[in-house]
């Protein structure tokens, strides 16, 4: 009994509930101070109470367009992440297997990493449909991260095992399945963990600037237009929650594929 209580405290209370309650308390306190010191619509314009945000969230979630908006943004960002993973993986293969490819592609990818996301968004807005831009932006943001981690993974593959696959006449497919994929899994895990967060940030930023017909970024832009700060908080919390859930699901999927390392 005592052991299960301790386990509950260690797994749920300390890592989840305690910080949640603490930071909600800090938020409530700050909102109260704003309410106290700023007259009129201080809470509505500067910092709403947590309960006001919850009410806004519930009222938003009762509208069917809320879920439609979320699904469309989710699909755009997920497709961007997958595209970024695919292209990043291909870049990693090319740059680790060919010196010429490494020389040619490394500067391009380094420039991509340093280019402000806003520049990408505005440029891509000229080249692509506004609904497609967030997906492309997410892919371009995720690509360098996956490229770097996967390239690290490919170069870190155990040379003795690699020699064994040659000596034992493994087919290329066998070598990929038995050696490369399991060796790369921790690197893919790490790349995805970083890529998903960045994907959501850049994807929503792209939606704010591109204003697709339905999108979380469009809704966030409208909250600014209407000075609806509780709705801005509600949408932001939704983005954070979605990013967290997607990161957990993708890492769970990666960790289940190919057994344990």
């Amino acid at each position, binding site marked *: 009994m005592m052991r299960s209580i301790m386990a509950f405290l260690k797994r749920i209370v300390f890592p989840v509930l305690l910080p949640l309650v603490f930071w909600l308390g800090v938020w409530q306190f700050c909102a109260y101070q704003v309410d106290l010191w700023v007259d009129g619509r201080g809470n509505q314009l500067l910092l709403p109470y947590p309960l006001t945000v919850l009410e806004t969230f519930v009222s938003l979630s009762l509208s069917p367009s809320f879920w439609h908006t979320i699904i469309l943004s989710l699909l755009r960002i997920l497709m961007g992440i997958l595209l970024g993973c695919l292209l990043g993986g291909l870049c990693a293969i090319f740059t680790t297997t060919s010196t010429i490819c490494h020389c040619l592609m490394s500067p391009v990818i380094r420039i991509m990493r340093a280019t402000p996301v806003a520049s990408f968004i505005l440029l891509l807005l000229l080249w692509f449909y506004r609904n497609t831009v967030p997906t492309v932006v997410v892919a371009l943001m995720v690509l360098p991260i996956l490229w770097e981690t996967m390239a690290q993974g490919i170069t870190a593959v155990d040379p003795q095992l690699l020699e*064994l696959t*040659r*000596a*034992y006449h493994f087919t290329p497919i066998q070598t990929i399945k*038995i*050696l490369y994929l*399991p060796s790369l899994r921790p690197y893919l895990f790490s790349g995805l963990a970083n890529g998903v967060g960045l994907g959501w940030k850049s994807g929503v930023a792209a939606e704010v600037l591109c204003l697709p017909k339905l999108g979380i970024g469009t809704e966030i832009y409208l909250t600014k237009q209407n000075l609806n700060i509780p709705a801005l908080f509600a949408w932001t919390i939704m983005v954070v929650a979605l990013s967290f859930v997607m990161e957990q699901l993708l890492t769970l999927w990666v960790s289940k594929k190919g057994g344990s*390392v």
Partner: protein
Amino acid sequence: MISCSQLSLSYGEHTILNQFSIDIPSEGITALSGPSGCGKTSLLRILAGLEQPQTGTITGFDPQKTAIQFQENRLFPWRTVEEHLTDVLPPHRASQLSHLLSLAQLEQAAKQLPKALSGGMQRRLSFVRTLALDASLYLLDEPFTGVDLPRITILMDFLKLLQLPVILSTHETEVLQLADRVIVLDGPPLRVIQVISQP
């Protein structure tokens, strides 16, 4: 007869083989004995086609049909014992899986990962994995390190039953006694000190 003629191999200024020649009968078990670092592993790696000598020729076997057991176990940390064997067993010998597991006395550990095995079990797995390969010449580099004597005897008896040429390097006197012939080496550079044929 497996003939190595005038083989030379060096890494920088470190000469491993210098115009080394040897004839090894292509039948039975040939044990290579010599001090650590004398060049036994390099000779086995050349025979397996993993190292290219700077000079010399090798004749008497098909390098594509050799199977080498490395000095290290080289097991995949994420593959089970059984998978290590099925990965290399040719389809027409798939039914030999249980026999190989039983030979290595690893039936109970078939679903285990290498990290769950002792050093001796890992070495036995590495040994039977090499035997699972289709080959006309088996090259075994210190195959019985960490394996106890009764099991060494069983595995050596199995090697004799194969009726295929086996060249192994070893330090264990028990293995040397069970081999058909022993080639005593010294080096580097590698040289033959004595060839002992045993009944």
